[in-house]
């Protein structure tokens, strides 16, 4: 409608403001990528980089993280903890969401409130409590302790996503399957699950992202053997900040983009 008429000054200002906000959102993240190829140990663009002098650009920080066992070890830890926590959160979260889809469940609202509470509880309080409680159980400084903690933090995302998908599920399909002779399990496996699968997978990706990015619980509960990538970055930023951090960050940005595109793709598939 505005395409035909020339945009007025008000609309120009509005579009300019919006553009600036989008720059604010994305530019800080994008700046990291070229800086990770800096040949010098600086956090800013050297003159050589600006002249596009090939000698000013290098892969030295990437070489450094690949050769550094602290970083490769933390990647393994992050993957092991992230995948295990995701499996627990996704299985339990999906089951609970299926149960909560039944309006007859007593105290549905209160149960929902409890299941989502890990998402809003300040993580420092949760981490401090977990430190005491898990140490008491002998789970301090163990992978299992952190996996359980991360699963708890990932649960709300699974419950929310799967619940949202189930809201769009037509219960008549279950009745139709039952009337055609399918048992509850067959109905779930052949009818309901394929339809809600995009929501379940999105929820799982959210839960994985939560664990993969979590640092406070690891700071409180993890020992040297449980160092994850965020934990390693945390000490990198606090202690000996080096552009190697930017190389790791670039890797994480690529990874985030991959997760984001997958979730968006799933969401569109779920809607279609």
């Amino acid at each position: 409608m505005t395409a035909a008429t020339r945009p007025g000054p008000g609309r120009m200002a509005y579009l300019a403001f919006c553009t600036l906000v989008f720059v604010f959102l994305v530019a800080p993240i994008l700046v990291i990528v070229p800086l990770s190829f800096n040949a010098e140990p600086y956090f800013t663009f050297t003159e050589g980089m600006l002249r596009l002098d090939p000698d000013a650009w290098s892969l030295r920080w990437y070489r450094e993280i690949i050769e550094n066992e602290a970083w490769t070890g933390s990647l393994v830890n992050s993957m092991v903890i992230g995948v295990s926590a995701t499996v627990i959160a996704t299985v339990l979260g999906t089951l609970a969401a299926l149960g909560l889809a039944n309006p007859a469940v007593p105290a549905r609202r209160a149960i929902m409130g409890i299941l989502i509470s890990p998402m809003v509880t300040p993580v420092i309080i949760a981490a401090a409590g977990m430190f005491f409680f898990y140490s008491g159980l002998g789970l301090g400084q163990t992978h299992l302790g952190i996996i359980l903690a991360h699963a708890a933090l990932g649960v709300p995302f699974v419950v929310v996503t799967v619940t949202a998908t189930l809201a769009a599920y037509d219960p008549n399909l279950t009745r139709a399957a039952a009337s055609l002779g399918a048992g509850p399990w067959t109905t779930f496996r052949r009818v309901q699950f394929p339809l809600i699968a995009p929501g379940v997978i999105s929820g799982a990706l959210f839960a994985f992202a939560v664990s993969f990015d979590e640092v406070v619980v690891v700071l409180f509960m993890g020992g040297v053997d449980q160092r994850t990538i965020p934990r390693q970055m945390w000490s990198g930023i606090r202690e000996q900040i080096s552009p190697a951090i930017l190389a790791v960050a670039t890797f994480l940005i690529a990874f985030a983009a991959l997760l984001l595109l997958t979730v968006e793709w799933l969401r569109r598939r779920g809607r279609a």
Partner: protein
Amino acid sequence: MKVSVAPERRAQLRALGLVAPLLIFIGVTFIAPLATMLTRSVHDPVVADALPETLALLEAWDGTGTPPEAVYAAAARELERATAERTVGQVAGRVNRVQGGLRSVVTGTARDLGDIGQGPWREAMTAIDEAWADPATWHAIRTTGERFTARHYLNAVDLQRLPDGSVASQPEERRIYLRLFLRTLMVSGVITLLCLLLGYPIAHLIARAPPHRANLLLVLVLVPFWTSLLVRTTAWIVLLQTQGVLNDILVAMGLVSDDGRLAMVYNMTGTIVAMTHVLLPFMVLPLYSVMRGIPATHMNAAASLGATPLQAFLRVYWPQSLPGVGAGALLVFILAIGYYITPALVGGSDGQLISNMIAYHMQTSLNWGLAAALGGVLLAGVLVLYALYDRLVGVERMGLG
């Protein structure tokens, strides 16, 4: 009738059976740890366990002058035992928090008592340290001896219990927590406002854009949402530090001299800028989902009825977008008041929030009771806001858009 109740009942039980495993899991892995933490804020048995007889005898003491010889004798005996059991350090640390300087008095006395075989203990202990003649010392021991205590919560809101049992403000130089709570609330408020200011226009733009462009713009909002928090925080350090990209640009443009580079990070500015960036998607997504439901025809109708664009916005669009504003603002505020990582990394000394103080007492000062009480106050605030969010929006629609 009877026939239809039974299957209904069975469906209900099956639904509960599906929910139960997760409810138990969250109860054990998440709620129980929180409960342990909160217990610590009111339950502190270390001194009570170490000095039971001393504390029992102190009950009879009226709080003026020095306690009777029997108290000294019991204290001497129990301090020696605490030394043998290696709990004297914990006792000394707790007493020291009530009355500064008593740590060395307690540990030093406990050490030297070993060389003195017999009483009178009042003279012996006072000879080791004059502090034992001061009623304040005994008051501190009595205070820390309460097995169940409100002192951590009093401390968390800058109050203390005086020797006569009344509650009063902490001395001026020890009143830091209320100010910190207030600062946390104010900073969170500022961040929420900034997020609204930046988020409202772009949510509106996305909601009104044709579908394929809206999807592209949404991805721009979601990129920071999915990018690691530590990456985003690192990005702001890189951009804002004195030798960083933004200062370099300002110097190159001649807006700032090379010596006058701006301090934009490791202070409150850094905390506010980075947290606004981190939390902005949580504002945009709920706003967008509400705005998408506002028909474009409403604004046209207002215009055709003679409203100026501003009038149409204020009287037609803004009221309809309010649920999104409420949802986004509450969510951002809830997340902001409990934030820890970003202030810890870019906040410097003046950009710290209450969570950072909790971490300090957990890890550095090891005053776990106080950390738990500060956490308890913060948690209570968050739960109130969370309940409000549930009433206004519903928790199952949390945050993801």
